[in-house]
């Protein structure tokens, strides 16, 4: 629980990186925390990403969480110049990716 807020912050940074890389430069961020879990929702426009990218990201964030990699590597996520989407997948429990109108919306959930 000690580093949970730091981890959520880094997960959020990684998702912001994904939006910027995709060319979406208008981003709204929402973060909800309670004692059991943290939920991050990002919504942005205006470049459309391909269905293949959506499918891949959906696959990554819904892959099983990998506790064994967490404490060793979590500091890599969201902290440098390189994409760490697979590590993001290892740190979150599940999520959703899709379009709401013209806005790309990504939601991830991490249980504590």
């Amino acid at each position, binding site marked *: *629980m*000690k580093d949970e807020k730091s981890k959520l912050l880094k997960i959020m940074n990684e998702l912001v*990186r994904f939006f*910027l*890389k995709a060319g979406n430069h208008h981003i709204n961020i929402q973060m909800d925390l309670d004692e059991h879990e943290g939920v991050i929702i990002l919504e942005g426009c205006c470049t459309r990403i391909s269905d293949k990218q959506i499918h891949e990201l*959906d*696959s*990554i964030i*819904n*892959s*099983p969480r*990998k*506790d*064994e*990699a*967490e*404490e*060793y*590597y*979590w*500091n*890599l996520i969201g*902290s*440098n*110049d*390189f*994409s*760490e989407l*697979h*590590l993001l*997948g*290892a740190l979150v429990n599940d999520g959703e990716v899709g379009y709401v109108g013209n806005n790309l919306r990504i939601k991830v959930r991490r249980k504590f």
Partner: protein
Amino acid sequence: MEKAILKSMEFSEKIKYRIMYMYSIAFILASFLFDSFDGIINGIVNIVMSPTLLLTDYLAIGGIGASLLNSGLLMLFTIFVAGRNDTLMNGPLIAAIFTVGGFAFFGKNIFNILGILLGVYIFSQIQKDHFTRYIIIAYFGTALSPVVSQVSFGMGFNRVPGMLLGVGIGILIGLILPPLASSFVRFHQGFNLYNIGFTAGVIGMIFMSVFRLSGYDHSLEQILVFKTNTYLLILLLLYFLSMILIGLVFSKKRWKEYLILMRSPGRLVTDFVTLHGFSVSLLNMGILGLLGVILVSILKAPLNGPIIGGIFTLVGFGAFGKHPLNAMPVMLGVIVSALFAGISLSSTGLMLTVLFATTLAPIAGHYGYLAGILAGFLHLSLVSNLGHLHGGMNLYNNGFSGGFIAAFLVPVFESYKKETDL
């Protein structure tokens, strides 16, 4: 079901564990082909009672049988503990198990790893967390096992108090490793695969400084076997060929998937088991093992304990970032550097650097072959200057060096790239 999930579940966890158990038990059984029971027991006693500083070849002090048994037992133990903690048999864990198994030929043994493992376990309990989250750090962290052996048997203490003090220091190391390992990974931005090697280098350096301040010093060791045992060579070839065979059979010759794996830069955290499947990873591991053995034979280096350790580490990381295309440029860089400096290509020291320099394989994978060759070239220059800092007590000396090389090269390469890679 999603692609990534499907690939990681191509084998059930139970089957993956059974295959890993099979490779550890193979060494235990093979040990009795090389020595008598009494010879093996005497060899194990010699191995355990050794200070185990770099480079202490267990084949020289304990014999082939005892070294194989030591390696098999350590792998068996680490697989068992991982299983009891419900840890997924993915790339990081496979890399850690084979690294422990490989270093069980020159530095790790059934006594000196326990304190560090216990220390990390206590840390996880203090954090009120599950040990699984720290198990990779614990296994790789046994890089500092020589500190335990050196305090126990090399500093002139009486046997029992020395051993208790050694284990106590191992526990202390285990208590400080997790936060340091997690923090230092940022230093090289994931381009040094042996991250714990860098962390352990810093810890070893601090311990050695305290030892020297207290008036104690020691020199590095060079206890080595200089001749290759043909039967041991055959055993290793069969070992790696079996990985290729199992990989081919169960992957149903998915060469296309293997070609995709070989396009991966391999930077931390690239778990080939999750991304490409267990069988394709096993195929890659076998090919890397074969590559290591062929390279050792071509360069006419002896197949001794440290070199077997280097090959096993290469094999383990075949599930976690390394493949022939990102490993070979770095190896070539080391060889070019040795030719430039006039270092014998058949020496154990050089061969070790060729094998372990692949800690920098992600540099070749991410920035290209020339960058990989440059990384290997610089790595050989630096690695021989670092052993003194930690007094040979960090077994992953190449990981220590690799951390500096990656931290030195990556920002330079990044600043000259045309576009930022967000």
